[in-house]
């Protein structure tokens, strides 16, 4: 490994704490497959989004008051009186949706190119842990403005835990710190919402650590074998990531500046009222597929278990997928089932936003069955039966001989 710099100060520090060596090793020299496509931009974009969320959140917290009688007005004071307060809040509120969009794309890229398969199982787990923590953080944060959707979202989601026999009611009372969602609930949700992102940050560090020890997957799903297969992270992927960041910021800020309430619910601009439930309450869009799964089961406990199960099952995906090939590029059958799985998730999301009745309920149930059928049955069976296309020799010679015909 080459020295990080000839600068004497840098050397002096590095001899005592090899921080520059570490940075050079992991952000500059880090050997990366040369064939990563733009789907590989979403990890660093999600990292950037986490930083933006922590920053805007910190400055919002300086003006937010976690008390039921003042929370709503303190948010409106941020919007009206605090210098650039409207910008910070809209960046934060839309940032939550952006974060989930990025992470969903990142997860689907992993599914499509088999990034969860050996030796990347732990990397995949850590990603799922980040996703679960994001869901918790997003839910807690949505409660803070103390509008109607905040209040009733908090009521409905915390009540999920009442489904568990014997302890359920006690858990809910414990979560609330009382007998309904009220000031003690809001009071504890604020510090929890504040601290969880730092837990996420910690898991992200470990996620990147795991990545750097098993190295990045790539669209071909084959390992890097020769030096010709890889390029150093810097400057190739730093500049590619920066270009991606530029595009993403334009997409993100278009919402912030021109449609800041696009992802929001009008009802959340009505102060929380424990006496009146809005006629149609929906969770934030990023929970909708799971909300649809919850509602497709006519039994309370069953619905809750199935919903949690839908996420937890992803932890064993590396073993459910029996194929020896990672990338869907070389899996002519499973490729279409993976795309169908995505479509199924979109339909579930749509169903989650509709009133749970009639056809909608039936479609939701079919999609729920398909979700589990795909993961528990189709994935292992197709892995056994499917005949993958021939894999290329290496990343740097991706041109495969097809039926003896050299290209």
């Amino acid at each position, binding site marked *: 490994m080459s020295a990080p710099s000839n600068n004497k100060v840098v050397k002096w520090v590095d001899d005592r704490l090899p921080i520059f060596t570490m940075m050079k090793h992991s952000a500059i020299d880090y050997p990366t497959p040369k064939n990563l496509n733009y789907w590989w931009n979403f990890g660093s974009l999600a990292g950037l989004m986490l930083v933006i969320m922590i920053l805007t959140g910190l400055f919002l917290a300086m003006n937010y008051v976690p008390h039921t009688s003042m929370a709503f007005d303190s948010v409106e004071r941020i919007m*009206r*009186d*605090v*210098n650039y307060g409207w910008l910070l809040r809209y960046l934060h509120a839309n940032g939550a949706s952006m974060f989930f969009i990025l992470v969903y794309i990142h997860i689907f890229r992993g599914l499509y190119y088999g990034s969860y398969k050996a030796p990347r199982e732990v990397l995949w787990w850590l990603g799922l842990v980040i996703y679960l923590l994001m869901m918790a953080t997003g839910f807690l944060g949505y409660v803070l403005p103390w509008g109607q959707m905040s209040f009733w979202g908090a009521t409905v989601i915390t009540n999920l835990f009442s489904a568990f026999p014997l302890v359920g009611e006690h858990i809910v009372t414990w979560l609330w710190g009382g007998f309904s969602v009220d000031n003690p609930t809001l009071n504890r949700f604020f510090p929890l919402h504040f601290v969880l992102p730092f837990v996420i940050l910690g898991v992200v560090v470990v996620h990147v650590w795991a990545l750097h020890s098993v190295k990045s997957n790539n669209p071909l799903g084959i390992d890097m074998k020769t030096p010709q297969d890889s390029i150093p992270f810097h400057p190739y992927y730093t500049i590619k990531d920066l270009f991606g960041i530029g595009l993403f910021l334009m997409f993100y800020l278009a919402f912030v500046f021109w449609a800041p309430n696009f992802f929001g619910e009008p009802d959340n601009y009505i102060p929380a009222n424990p006496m009146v439930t809005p006629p149609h309450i929906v969770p934030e869009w990023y929970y909708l597929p799971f909300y649809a799964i919850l509602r497709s089961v006519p039994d309370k406990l069953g619905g809750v278990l199935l919903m949690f199960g839908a996420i937890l099952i992803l932890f064993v995906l590396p073993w459910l997928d029996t194929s020896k090939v990672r990338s869907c590029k070389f899996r002519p059958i499973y490729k279409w089932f993976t795309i169908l799985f995505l479509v199924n998730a979109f339909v579930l999301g749509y169903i989650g936003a509709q009133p749970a009745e009639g056809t909608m309920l039936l479609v939701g149930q079919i999609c729920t069955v398909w979700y589990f059928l795909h993961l528990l049955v189709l994935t292992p069976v197709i892995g056994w039966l499917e005949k993958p296309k021939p894999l290329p020799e290496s990343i740097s010679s991706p041109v495969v001989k097809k039926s003896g015909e050299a290209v």
Partner: protein
Amino acid sequence: MADTANPASGSSDGETRRDFLLYASSAVGVVGAGLALWPFVHSMNPAADVLALASTEVDLAPIAEGQAITVMWRGKPIFVRHRTADEISAAQAVDVTSLRDPQTDADRVKKPEWLVMIGICTHLGCIPLGQAPADPKGEFGGWFCPCHGSNYDTSGRIRKGPAPLNLAVPPYAFTTDTSIKIG
């Protein structure tokens, strides 16, 4: 570096163009990051509702000669004293050159009978005594800071003790003969 494909850069023409692009992109990126920081920094400055309360009106009519009141302005105590003729002449008689922070009494008041000051000791920020009739007023009949023993005279000027400066005079104006607007 050694274990990856990373050929050295090409011709010198390409080099120049890449240098330009590199410098231009870096400059734009750094400027953008800098500009993006400003809303965060500025959000910590006083907000519009705080600035809107930045002035206070005080009705002086109820304050009898020899009495003092304390009012709140921007979260700070403002001393308003209706000075007696004796206090005024004592304040005016002082030899300005002998003062630590030389100021004439006329520089510190708009009308001699009304002394308006920020009631915060210029040493370390305590509030001096001397407003209530029973308070110690120090050796010079003005104010006395109990924290570290600074003595202020009837014009609020530092006369003895560690404080470096006279009690500050806030910006204010008479709106009528008997009312002032501070700030």
